[in-house]
């Protein structure tokens, strides 16, 4: 719904977010201000409808990932006053984080990078729910992480809280 470039309308301030894979997202200031990172940046450089600021994003924030973040920010910029109130907004939040693992991690990263605190809370909770009660090996597999400990170091960490591994 929010993907692709929209023409700026009616002289409102706009900003263009450009992903590494070449997609441009034009959003209004209320949407951009949901992101602490963009808000800070734009308060310094400014942006206008005739000459919108173009902000390039790192490669890990693909157009698909940014689409999700923009969707969240647009919806929350509008607040609970639209489309069914707070209840609908909560349901929107719940459904937003029903994502496959890689997408969920990418959106978590994007929420942290762009500093969208409530979105970061939502995705962090979803990741936490996914890894709850997982074994160490399962958590490594989930995040695609390889252990960078020596055997000796692993032994020390284990011995500090053996009960957590039972």
């Amino acid at each position, binding site marked *: 719904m929010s993907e692709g470039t929209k023409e700026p309308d009616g002289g409102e301030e706009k900003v263009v977010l450009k992903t590494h894979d070449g997609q441009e997202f034009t959003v209004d200031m209320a949407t951009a201000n949901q992101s602490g990172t963009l808000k800070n940046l734009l308060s310094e450089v400014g942006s206008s409808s005739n000459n919108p600021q173009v902000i390039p994003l790192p490669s*890990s924030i693909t157009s698909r990932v940014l689409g999700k973040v923009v969707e969240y920010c647009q919806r929350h910029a509008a607040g609970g006053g639209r489309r069914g109130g707070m209840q609908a907004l909560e349901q929107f939040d719940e459904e937003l984080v029903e994502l496959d693992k890689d997408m969920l991690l990418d959106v978590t990263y994007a929420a942290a990078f762009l500093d969208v605190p409530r979105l970061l809370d939502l995705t962090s909770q979803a990741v936490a729910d996914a890894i709850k009660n997982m074994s160490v090996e399962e958590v490594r597999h989930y995040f695609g992480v390889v*252990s960078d400990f020596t055997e000796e170091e692993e032994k020390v*960490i284990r011995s500090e809280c053996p009960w957590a591994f039972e």
Partner: protein
Amino acid sequence: MATQKRAHAEEDEEQGHDRGGGFAKLPEECVAQVLSYTTPRDSCRSALVSKAFLSAAGSDALWEGFLPSDCAEILSRAVHPVQYSSKKDLYFRLCHPILVDGGGKSFLLERSTGKKTYMISPAKMILAHGSNHQYWTWISLPESRFAKVPELLSVCWFDIYGSIDSRLLSRKTAYVAYIVFKLVPDAYGLDSPHQKGSVILGSYESANYVSLQPEEEEEESDEEAAEEGTEGRRMRSREDGWLEVELGEFYIDEGDEGDVEMRLRETEELQWKHGLILQGFEVRPKK
């Protein structure tokens, strides 16, 4: 902070979408954020995942969140000041009992979840004939966390009562109340079928038959006990060397329910009883 995030982003840039390189996708503060939504147990275990996780799993911000929100107030009630080097260190110090409220209670955190556990000292309980030296004697035991505990010499009217303010307990939590005790070798009379443990909280009340003596050999098997639902109220040995039996369960919602009232009594059959040493009543989160 923003430059740090950029640096992470650039590392990512080099790796493209390969997730094999440690945890470049999520910076450490993100890992700590994710862990804050898990439990202390999950967080301790995740320290073994990688160095980035180890660092996140030890952060003050994370453990601050696992400590009770009224931690400072609890520490101010401690009989002996609690020294600690970090929030994680404090958390684990509080996983061992500390005396609070002038020695009238002991407090600890349930390690896996960080929920609050209290034990009420017999000195703050009401014992029928508790101050009559014919019936009860107050003794000091090295293995007791409280200065003095009562030993039952002989009574037939057996009634002990203790209470705790629900505001002191963790919210939205199911609790179990226990009597913690020991028996002298020649203890008798503490298994009357009319001996009842009860818990009252507001309009809620639970009452169960509670025996404080080991069961006879020919008693029902575990399976039979489970069928009858009495298994949970069996006597168990504790790690601290005392015994415990469940008095009842209750649920703390918002902590505005008033006092949790716990009682164990046998005032019907009135057989003679002897040989109970009382450590206290404990309330701890249900597993």
